[in-house]
C-alpha cells in the first residue's frame, strides 16, 4: 500500500515498490486505486449537490446567498485540502476512508440540522432568513463536509503516490471524472428516485466501498464504514420524513405537512392549515389554494386591456387560479405554461373537481415547459395577450423573463394590437431608491419594446404594454364598462361574489384611491434629476397637484420621457437581478451591503487590476528576498488561481447565456456540471499524456494566453450559439463551451503540481489556489459583475490576473534552480 512520509522531504516519498504493498487481499491494482480516487470525487459531488439543494430550500434564495454558500463550500474545501496536505499521513487509505466517512456522516447531520435550524437561529415562522444567518448556517452545516472532502484530496493523491510527482495530477483527474459521473447520475437518477439522505448515504457507501477495496490494510475499516452506510441507507427514509416534519414545524409552526416530493426543479412541500393548502418549492411559498382573489384581480385588470383577447397565453400562475379567472371571459384559446409538472400534479390532486375540469375544456392547453423557450418556439402572431405571472427577477433564471430580449420575443408572438402584461412586487405608497431602480429599469426596458406602457400600482404592480396607442387604460369607469360588456352577468353585482370574486367595483378599489398617474410619472421620469422619479437623496419632491386643488394637465404616459442615463435589463446585462438584490438588502436591514453593492457597481474599470496586483506583490517580495523555491511555488499557485478564476467566470458566463437562449437551467445543471467536470478531467488527462512526452516550458504562458483569447472570443461564440435555430444544436454548442470552460484548470493542474518541489503539501496548496480562484469568480461574476457590467466586461475581469500570473511565471523561471529533470509519469 502506498504510504506518504511527511512533507519534510519536500515531495511525495513512497515506501515499498511503487507504493503497492500487499494487503490482506493482495496488492491493490492501479484501476482500484483510480476508482477510489474517482469515488472520492463522486461522493464530493453528490454531497455538495444535496447540501446545496437543502440550503437553497432554507434560504428560499437569492443569487448572492447562493453565491455566498458556494463560496463557503469552496473555501472550506480549500482549507481542508490545505490543512490535510500539511499533516503527515502514515496511512493515506485509512485517511481517505476516515475523510469520506466523516463527510458522509456530517452531511447527514447537516441535512437534519438545516431542517431544524430556523428555531435555533431565531428565525420566526414564515420569516426570510437574513444574510448573516444564511452564511452562518452554510458555514456550520456545509463547511465541515466540504473540509472533510477537501482533506480527501491529498489522501487520494497519496494513495496514488506510486506515480510519484504525478500523483496529485492523477488524483485531480480521477476526482474530476468521478465528479462528472456524479453530476450526471444525480441529475438523471438520484434526484428522481432518492431522498437527500439516501443520496448522501448511497454516495458515501459507494465511495467507501471503493476506498475499502483500495485500502489494503484498512480493508476492515473501510468495509465496516461501508456497512454502516448501508445500514444508514436503510433508515434514510424514516429519517427524511421525521426531519422534514420537524422542518415544517419550525418553518410554519402550526401547519401540518401533507406531502413532500422532489422534482428536478427543487423540493416541493405541501402544507395544510385550516381550509387552506399551501405549496412551497425549494422553501419558497409558491401559492395557496383556495385563492379566489389573486388570479381574479390579475385577470380582471388585464383582460380588459385588449379589444378582444381571443388567444391568451399565461406563463405561470395558471394552476393557482389565473386560468380559472381568464376563462370567465369569452376567449377562444388559453395556453397555460407551467415549468414543473410535479407541482401541477400535486396541486391538481387538491383542486375541486370543477376547477380541475377547466384544464380539459376545448381550447385550453397545459404545457410543461420553460416559458421563455415556449415563447421563442411559438409561431409569430399567435396570441392577443401574453400574461406573465412569475416571481420577481431575484435570480438569473427568473431575470430572463424581464429582459428586453424576452419582451421582443413576446412582441413577435403577439398579433397586431396585442398586449403583454407582467407583475412585479412593488409598494402602493412609496418607492424607495432600490424599488425605483428595479421597477424603473423594468418600466424602461418594457417601454423600449412596447411604446405604450401603463402600470397598475399596488403590490404586486401590474405592468401593461402594447403597440396599440389607443386601448390601454387606467380609468376605473372605462374599465368597469368594458368588463360589463364582456361579462354581462356581473351587472348588478353588489359585492356578493356570485360570479367569482372580481366585480366592476374592484377597479375603483385598486385605481380609485391614491394617485396611479403619479406612480406612472415616477417610473416614466426615473431617474431624471428634479423629476418625480428622482431617487432618494435629491431635493424635495414637488407637492402633489391635487393639494393645490388642481389636476395635472397631461397624463404621464402622454409626456415625453426625460433624458437620463438608464441601463436596460438585458440577457447580457441583467441589471434587474442586482436591483432586486438591493431591494432585498434594504428589506432585510443590510444598508451597508446595499451601499457596498451600489459602490461596487460604480467602481472604475481600473480596479479590476487589483487581483493581478495582489498576485504580483508577494512574487516580487519573494524574488527580492532571494527565495527561488518560494517564488516558483507562488508562481504555480498564481497561475492556478488565475486560471481557476478564469474557469469559474467562463463557466458562469456560459451558464448565464445558456439560460437565456435555451431555457430554465436548473434541470440541466447537473448535466452541464458533468460536462464541465468532463472538460476538467479531459484536460487533466491530456496534460498527463502530453506532459509525459516532454517538458514544455512554453506550456503555462501558452495556456494563459489561450484564456485571454477565450475571454475575447467567448462573447461571439455565445451569441453565435444562441442564434442557432434548433434547441438541440444550442444545447450541443453550449455543452461544448462548458466542456471547454473546464479544460484550462484540467490542463494546468497536473502540470503545475508535477513541475515543482513540495510534494503533497504543494499539491494541496495548488488545489486550494484553484478553489480560491473559483471562489473569487463565483462571488464576483454571478451576483455582481454580470448584472453591473454585462457579460462581455465580466469575461475580461480575470485578464489582469492572468497577465500577472504570466509575469510571475516569467520572473520565477528566471531564478529557477537549474538541473531539475522532469521524469515522465508511469502510464495512466
Amino acid at each position, binding site marked *: 500500500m502506498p504510504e506518504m512520509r511527511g512533507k519534510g522531504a519536500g515531495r511525495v516519498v513512497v515506501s515499498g515498490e511503487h507504493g503497492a504493498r500487499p494487503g490482506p487481499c493482495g496488492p491493490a491494482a492501479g484501476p482500484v486505486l483510480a476508482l477510489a480516487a474517482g469515488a472520492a470525487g463522486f461522493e464530493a459531488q453528490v454531497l455538495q449537490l444535496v447540501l446545496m439543494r437543502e440550503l437553497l430550500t432554507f434560504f428560499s434564495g437569492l443569487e448572492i446567498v447562493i453565491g455566498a454558500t458556494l463560496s463557503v463550500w469552496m473555501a472550506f474545501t480549500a482549507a481542508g485540502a490545505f490543512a490535510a496536505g500539511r499533516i503527515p499521513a502514515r496511512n493515506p487509505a485509512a485517511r481517505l476512508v476516515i475523510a469520506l466517512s466523516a463527510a458522509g456522516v456530517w452531511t447527514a447531520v447537516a441535512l437534519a440540522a438545516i431542517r431544524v435550524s430556523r428555531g435555533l437561529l431565531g428565525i420566526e415562522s*414564515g420569516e426570510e432568513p*437574513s444574510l448573516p444567518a444564511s452564511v452562518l448556517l452554510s458555514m456550520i452545516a456545509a463547511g465541515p463536509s466540504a473540509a472533510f472532502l477537501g482533506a480527501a484530496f491529498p489522501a487520494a493523491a497519496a494513495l496514488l503516490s506510486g506515480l510519484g510527482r504525478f500523483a496529485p495530477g492523477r488524483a485531480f483527474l480521477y476526482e474530476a471524472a468521478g465528479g462528472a459521473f456524479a453530476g450526471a447520475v444525480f441529475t438523471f437518477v438520484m434526484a428522481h428516485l432518492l431522498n437527500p439522505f439516501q443520496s448522501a448515504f448511497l454516495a458515501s457507501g459507494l465511495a467507501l466501498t471503493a476506498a475499502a477495496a483500495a485500502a489494503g490494510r484498512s480493508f476492515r475499516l473501510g468495509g465496516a464504514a461501508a456497512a454502516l452506510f448501508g445500514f444508514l441507507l436503510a433508515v434514510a427514509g424514516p429519517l427524511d420524513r421525521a426531519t422534514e416534519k420537524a422542518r415544517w414545524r419550525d418553518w410554519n409552526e402550526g401547519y401540518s405537512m401533507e406531502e413532500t416530493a422532489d422534482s428536478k426543479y427543487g423540493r416541493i412541500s405541501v402544507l395544510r392549515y385550516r381550509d387552506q393548502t399551501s405549496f412551497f418549492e425549494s422553501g419558497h411559498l409558491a401559492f395557496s389554494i383556495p385563492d379566489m382573489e389573486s388570479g381574479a384581480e390579475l385577470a380582471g385588470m388585464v383582460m380588459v386591456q385588449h379589444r378582444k383577447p381571443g388567444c391568451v397565453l399565461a406563463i405561470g400562475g395558471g394552476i393557482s387560479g389565473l386560468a380559472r379567472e381568464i376563462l370567465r371571459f369569452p376567449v377562444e384559446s388559453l395556453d397555460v405554461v407551467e415549468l414543473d409538472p410535479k407541482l401541477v400534479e400535486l396541486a391538481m390532486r387538491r383542486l375541486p373537481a370543477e376547477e380541475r375540469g377547466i384544464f380539459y375544456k376545448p381550447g385550453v392547453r397545459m404545457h410543461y415547459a420553460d416559458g421563455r423557450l415556449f415563447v421563442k418556439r411559438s409561431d409569430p402572431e399567435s396570441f392577443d395577450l401574453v400574461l406573465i405571472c412569475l416571481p420577481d427577477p431575484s435570480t438569473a433564471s427568473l431575470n430572463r423573463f424581464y429582459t428586453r430580449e424576452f419582451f421582443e420575443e413576446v412582441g413577435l408572438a403577439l398579433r397586431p394590437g396585442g398586449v403583454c402584461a407582467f407583475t412585479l412586487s412593488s409598494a402602493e*405608497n412609496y418607492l424607495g431608491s432600490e424599488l425605483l431602480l428595479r421597477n424603473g429599469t423594468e418600466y424602461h426596458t418594457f417601454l423600449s419594446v412596447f411604446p405604450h406602457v401603463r402600470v397598475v400600482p399596488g403590490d404586486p404592480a401590474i405592468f401593461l404594454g402594447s403597440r396599440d396607442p389607443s386601448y390601454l387604460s387606467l380609468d376605473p369607469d372605462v374599465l368597469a364598462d368594458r368588463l360589463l360588456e364582456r361579462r354581462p352577468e356581473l351587472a348588478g353585482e353588489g359585492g356578493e361574489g356570485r360570479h367569482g370574486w372580481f366585480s366592476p367595483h374592484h377597479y375603483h378599489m385598486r385605481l380609485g384611491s391614491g394617485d396611479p398617474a403619479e406612480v406612472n410619472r415616477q417610473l416614466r421620469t426615473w431617474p431624471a434629476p428634479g423629476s418625480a422619479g428622482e431617487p432618494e437623496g435629491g431635493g*424635495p*419632491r414637488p407637492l402633489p397637484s391635487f*393639494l393645490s*386643488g388642481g389636476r395635472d394637465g397631461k397624463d404621464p404616459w402622454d409626456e415625453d420621457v426625460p433624458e437620463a442615463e438608464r441601463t436596460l435589463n438585458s440577457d447580457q446585462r441583467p441589471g434587474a437581478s442586482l436591483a432586486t438584490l438591493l431591494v432585498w438588502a434594504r428589506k432585510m436591514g443590510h444598508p451597508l451591503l446595499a451601499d457596498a453593492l451600489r459602490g461596487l457597481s460604480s467602481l472604475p474599470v481600473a480596479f479590476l487590476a487589483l487581483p493581478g496586483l495582489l498576485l504580483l506583490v508577494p512574487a516580487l517580495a519573494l524574488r527580492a528576498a532571494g527565495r527561488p523555491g518560494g517564488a516558483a511555488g507562488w508562481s504555480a499557485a498564481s497561475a492556478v488561481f488565475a486560471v481557476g478564476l478564469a474557469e469559474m467566470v467562463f463557466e458562469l458566463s456560459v451558464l448565464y447565456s445558456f439560460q437565456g437562449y435555451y431555457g430554465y437551467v436548473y434541470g440541466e445543471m447537473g448535466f452541464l456540471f458533468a460536462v464541465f467536470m468532463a472538460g476538467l478531467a479531459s484536460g487533466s488527462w491530456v496534460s498527463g499524456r502530453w506532459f509525459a512526452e516532454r517538458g514544455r516550458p512554453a506550456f503555462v504562458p501558452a495556456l494563459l494566453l489561450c484564456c485571454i483569447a477565450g475571454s475575447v472570443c467567448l462573447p461571439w461564440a455565445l451569441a453565435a450559439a444562441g442564434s442557432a435555430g434548433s434547441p438541440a444544436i444550442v444545447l450541443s454548442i453550449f455543452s461544448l463551451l462548458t466542456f471547454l470552460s473546464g479544460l484550462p484548470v484540467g490542463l494546468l493542474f497536473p502540470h503545475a503540481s508535477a513541475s515543482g518541489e513540495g510534494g503533497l503539501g504543494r499539491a494541496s496548496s495548488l488545489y486550494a489556489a484553484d478553489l480560491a480562484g473559483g471562489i473569487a469568480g463565483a462571488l464576483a461574476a454571478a451576483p455582481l459583475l454580470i448584472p453591473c457590467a454585462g457579460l462581455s466586461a465580466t469575461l475580461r475581469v480575470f485578464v489582469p490576473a492572468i497577465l500577472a500570473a504570466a509575469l510571475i511565471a516569467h520572473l520565477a523561471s528566471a531564478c529557477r534552480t537549474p538541473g531539475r529533470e522532469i521524469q515522465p509519469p508511469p502510464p495512466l
Partner: protein
Amino acid sequence: MRNAGEEGLGSEAGACGGCGAAWKPLGRRGFLKRLAALAAGAAASPAISALMGFARSASASPAGWLEVEFYEKLKNNEILCHVCPFDCHLFDQEMCRCRTRTNLGGKLLTPAWNNPCIIRRDPIEKMPLNHFLPGEEQVSLAVGGCMLRCLYCQNWQQSQSMPQNLKNFACTPEDAVSGVLKQTPEDGAKKCRTIGFTYTEPIAWLEYAKAVGLHAKSRNVRVAMATSMFFKEKALRDACKYVTAFAAALKGWGELFYNKVIGTRDPKEERGDFKAVLKALEVVKEEGVWMEITNLVVPTYNDDMAGVKEMCGWIAKNLGTSVPLHFGRFVPEFKLKNLPRTPVETLDEARKIALDAGIKYVYTSNIAPHTGNNTYCPKCGEKIISRLGFKILSNGLRDGACPKCGEKVPGVWS
C-alpha cells in the same frame, strides 16, 4: 458645556465646506473604503446597521430639526424620552429606536418635521374607519420612522428608515391643512375634510402630527390617526386634544406575540410592554375620542381562537361593545413573505367569536367581497352600509340610525 447639536455638527459641516472639498470620482482610498464596506456589509447585523444609522444621523445637519416635547433631561447631557413605552435613555449623540429622535447635546431633537414622504387621497375606510364619515376621503400623510419592528410591515420602506433618508415633500402644517380645504367636491367627487396620519407610525413623528393636528382643528378639519397605540399616557392624552378618530391597532393578544412579531421589547434595555397598549386604548375611551380597533390576524402567530376570545372579552369589558372591531387579513409581506395569507375560515371564526362576545360591529378587512365588509344593525340585522372592501356600495344610514328599526349606530357621521 459644548452643545454638540449646534456646534459640533455645525463645525463638522463647516469644515467640509471650508476645505472646499467636492465629490470626486472614486479614488484608491474610496475604493478601499468601499471594499471595507462590502466586508462589513456582508456580515452586517441589524445592530451594525443601527450603529451606522446613528453615525449618519450624527453627521447630518440639524438645521430644521425640532425639539421633542415629552422628554426629561438628565445629568451629563443624557435624556429620557417619554413619548412611547420604550422610555429611551439616550446618551449625547445617540439616536433612538424610532429613528426620528436624537439626543444632541442634551436636547432631544427630531428631523421628522415638515417632510412627509407620502401625501395622497384615500377613502377613509382604508384606515380602517367604518363609522367615521363613511364614503368621504381624506388627505393621508406619513413621515418616515417607527419605533416598532412588525415582521409583516407593508410600509417597511418608510417605517424602517430615517425620515431624512427618504424622498420627501416639503409640506408645512399650513400647506397640509389648506390643501385639505381646497378639496372641494366637483362632479360627483367625494368630500374630503379630514387629514389622516397613516402608513407609518405617527408616534414617531408626533411633533409634526401635533402641529398639523392643531392647525387642522383650528380650521375645522378632522384628524384621523392610524396607530399602534404604543403611546405613553401623557403624550396620548395630549394627542386626544387634536385627533378626531383613532384607528387603533390591538395587534394581538399577549406579551409573547408583541415581543416576537411586533418588536415591543427592546432587546438591550428590556423595556417596552404590551400592557401599555391596553392602557392606551383605555385612555382613548376615557377621553371620549372616537376609536375603532384593528387586529391583523397573522396565521399561527395570533390566530389562536382562545386568545381571540380573551381579547374580545377584554374589549367588550373595558372599551364597550359599541367599539367597532376590524379583523384584517394578513398577506405575505416584508419579512414574512413565506407565510401564506390568513385562511378565510380563520377570519370567519374570529368574527363569530367577537360577535358572540357581544361586540356589535365586527368587520373583516383586506378581503372583498366578504360579509364582514358591511355594517349590520345589531338589533334587527339589517344591512345598513354595504361595502366592497373600502368602497361604499350603498349607505342606508338615516341620521346615524338604522333605517329599519331606528337603532342608533355609534360613530362620527357628519
